[in-house]
Each structure stands twice: as structure tokens, then as C-alpha cells.
């Protein structure tokens, strides 16, 4: 808990909040602008809006946002003598890895919540949709809170071991793109990629990219199970490898 608290304190003066707030705004703005400039109404109301905003967000922007946040979070540790201070301190490697993962996860959850609020706001204010977002998409958002765990753990691990700020972001772009292709071709086998798990959970019940269009307990269980399995594997391996690392001279 203390390590998580220490990590959240570091966020106070961080530019991570710019990514958390600006990225969902950019995605929602683009989707809104496209719909307005095309002159065509939202054929299926809330469903079409959800697919255009959250469906697109799940393809690339989510992975890139998490990658940027992870790079920002690990950047102070790679500067100056901070890495040696981190490795020389009393905190175990496992604590460091899990604390960073939890903190990054909290930032990602905030980003998802901002996106959800924006979808509702855009739907009501920009397009005058009646009612509220269908319950299945609220469930999909909650499940995606678990579904992003593999992506969060992987990007945190990449930013831990790769000192470059831009490198993990480039890896996220390629990974997300490859996962989209894999989902088209291999269906649920694509869940072997952490990027696909995150994308798939946000596409739940949307009927796009291989989704059946319904919220079946089977697929939800599979996604939650895959998320937790990936999280455990990535963080265990990450902590083990970090244990074997030494200070930098």
C-alpha cells in the first residue's frame, strides 16, 4: 500500500493528467466531427455512437494512451541516479512492479470513465439522443476495467525495461495494429495477445470486429480469466527479471 501511495504522490505534478483527459476528448471530438460533417444521422442512436467513439478508442487510442502513461510514469526512474535509488532502496522488486501496475491501472480507469462521460454528453448534447446509454455498454465499460489489466501490465513492464520514452509507444502501436488484424483472422485465438484482450472487452456486445452483439456470460468469463492470467504472468516475470538487474554505473 505504501508503494502505491508513493506512486500516486508522484502523479501530483505529472503531465499524465493531460493524457488522461485529452485523449478521450480527442477521440470523442473526432467521432462527433465525422458524424456532423458527413450529414448522416446516427442510424441506430446510442449503439452507433458507442461503436464510433468507444469502438474506435479500443482499436488504437487506448493502447497508445496506456503506453504514453506508462512511459510518463517510468520516466523519472530512468533519469539521473533515480534508478540506483530505486534498486538500492528497501522496496522489493515485486512491490515496485505491482505498485506501478496498480497506479497505471487507476489512471487508465480514469481515462475510461472520462470516455464514458463524454459519450453520454456527446449523445445528449450534440446529437439530442433520448434516454441513456444502453446498459450493455455500461457493463462492457466495467468489464473493460478488468480487460485493460494485461495491457497495463505489459506497457508498464516495457517502460520499466526500455529506457526510451518513445520505444514502448511504438511497440504499443504495432501491437494494437497486429491485434486488430489477428482478431479479424483468428477470432478469440487473438486473446493470446494482451492488446486483443483490452480491445475485445471494450467491443463487448457492440457487434463489431467479431463480437456476437450480445453480452454472453461465457465470453465475459473468458475475458476476465484471460485478463487475470495475463496480469499474473507479466508481473511475475517482470518482478523476477527486475530482481536479477543491478544498479547502473
Amino acid at each position: 500500500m505504501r508503494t502505491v501511495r508513493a506512486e500516486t504522490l508522484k502523479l501530483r505534478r505529472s503531465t499524465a493528467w493531460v493524457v488522461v483527459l485529452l485523449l478521450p476528448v480527442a477521440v470523442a471530438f473526432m467521432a462527433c466531427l465525422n458524424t456532423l460533417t458527413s450529414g448522416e444521422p446516427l442510424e441506430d442512436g446510442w449503439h452507433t455512437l458507442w461503436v464510433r467513439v468507444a469502438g474506435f478508442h479500443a482499436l488504437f487510442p487506448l493502447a497508445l494512451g496506456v503506453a504514453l502513461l506508462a512511459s510518463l510514469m517510468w520516466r523519472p526512474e530512468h533519469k539521473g541516479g533515480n534508478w540506483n535509488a530505486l534498486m538500492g532502496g528497501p522496496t522489493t522488486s515485486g512491490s515496485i512492479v505491482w505498485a506501478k501496475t496498480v497506479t497505471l491501472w487507476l489512471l487508465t480507469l480514469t481515462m475510461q470513465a472520462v470516455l464514458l462521460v463524454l459519450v453520454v454528453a456527446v449523445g445528449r448534447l450534440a446529437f439530442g439522443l433520448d434516454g441513456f446509454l444502453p446498459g450493455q455498454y455500461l457493463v462492457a465499460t466495467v468489464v473493460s476495467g478488468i480487460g485493460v489489466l494485461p495491457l497495463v501490465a505489459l506497457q508498464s513492464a516495457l517502460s520499466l525495461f526500455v529506457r526510451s520514452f518513445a520505444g514502448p509507444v511504438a511497440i504499443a502501436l504495432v501491437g494494437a495494429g497486429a491485434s486488430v488484424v489477428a482478431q479479424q483472422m483468428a477470432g478469440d485465438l487473438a486473446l493470446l495477445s494482451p492488446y486483443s484482450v483490452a480491445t475485445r472487452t471494450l467491443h463487448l456486445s457492440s457487434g463489431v470486429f467479431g463480437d456476437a452483439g450480445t453480452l454472453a456470460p461465457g465470453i465475459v468469463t473468458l475475458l476476465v480469466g484471460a485478463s487475470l492470467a495475463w496480469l499474473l504472468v507479466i508481473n511475475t516475470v517482470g518482478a523476477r527479471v527486475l530482481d536479477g538487474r543491478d544498479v547502473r554505473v
Partner: protein
Amino acid sequence: MTAIVNEFTKMRGLRLWPLLVAMVLVVFGGTALGIMSDPEFDPGAPGAWNHPLMGAAMALTMFSPLFVAVLASRLVDAEHLANGWLFSATTELPAGRLCRAKVVALGILLVATTGTGYLAVPTLGSLVGIEVPFPLGRWLGYGCCAMVIAVALLALHVLIAARFEDQLVGLGIGVLGLLIAAASQFFPTWAGHLLPWSYYALIIPAGYTADALAELPLSYPSIAALGCVVTALFLAATGRLDRKEL
């Protein structure tokens, strides 16, 4: 010339080759997806080459903006560390000239990488047995236009990375550029001329019209204008950097 060679030497330590290989694979993957995503793809149909062309175009549109931002960020960041700008200036290489050398060096790398990936269109198209003659002119035309946009974005990102030491700025603009490039396909034509990233929408080689994939015209004059304007602005900006006191 020496400055450009120096930039290639700096790139050796930056381990850019995985990124370059990934870019080639991405274009190949996108081209393959363009062929395989349509269940009614017919290698003997007159418009068969539109499928791999569109796949390659989508891959370049989606990946080039951030790919360029990462390349520029990596190479320029080397100067922000340990007073690289000041050191170069003392060796008769002021900041503006250094930026120009970086754009030339990275531009050569970008064109070579993207060009290699773009060979996926004739390669994969031949492998799946497309029978109609290869549209060499249109393939070259789209390729040249895409390279002009990519190099224009590269120039922009080198200037951004030189101005802002925080890589979040350059990469954040790259991510926003990716969103603009993806979304601009649905913009009206006039809006496609507003931002550099939206020019990708003006050169989409094929699109669905009345449920069939048809050839679309490429906007050569718009791309030529973009190239001229960005070149002029880049030279003006780097000229100013040359005279700026460090």
C-alpha cells in the same frame, strides 16, 4: 554531407532497426488484410488490384503519423542530452542546419523503409494470383504522394522535438495526428487541406462506392502544394534557428 553522415552514426546507437522492421511488416500486414478482408475478392476481376492498394494505403495512413513522430523524437532527443545543441553549434553546425541534416537522414530512412513495405502490393497481389495488369502508374503515384506527406510530417516533428525537450509533446501530437489521419477519410475535401495529417484522405487510392471497391482519383496538386509550403516553412524556421542564440 558530413552532418548527414553523423546523423546516421548517431542512429546506430538508438536501435531504430526494430522500428523500421516493424513498419515494413505493418505495411505487409495491412496489404494482406486488404486482400483477405473482402470475402468476395476475385483475382480475375478488373479492379482486383484495388484491394491490396487500399490495404497498404490504410496501413500507411494509420501508422505513418506516429512512426514519424517516434523517429524524430528518438534522434532529436540525443541532442537534448548533455548539451548536444551547444556542442554542435561550436563545431559550425547550428541548430537549424542540424535539424535539416536530421530531416535528410531520417527522410532517406523513412523513404527506404516505407518503399520496402510498399512492395507488398505487387508481391502479395502476384502471390494471390491477380490476373489483370499491375497499375504501375497509380501504384507509383500513391507511393510518391504518401512519401511527400510522411516527409512533411517528419520535418514538422523534428522542429517540435527540437523546440520541446519533453517527448510527450511530440508523441502526443503524433497520436493526435494519427486520430486526424484516421478520421479525415470522412471529412469533406476542403477540410482535408487544413492539416498535414488530413492530406492522407486526399490520396486514398480506392474506396467503396455502391458496395464495390472502385479506383479513386489522387489529388496530386494538393500534395505538391503541401510539399512546397512545408519546405518553405521548414527552411524559414530552421533559418531562424541558425541565427538564434543558445
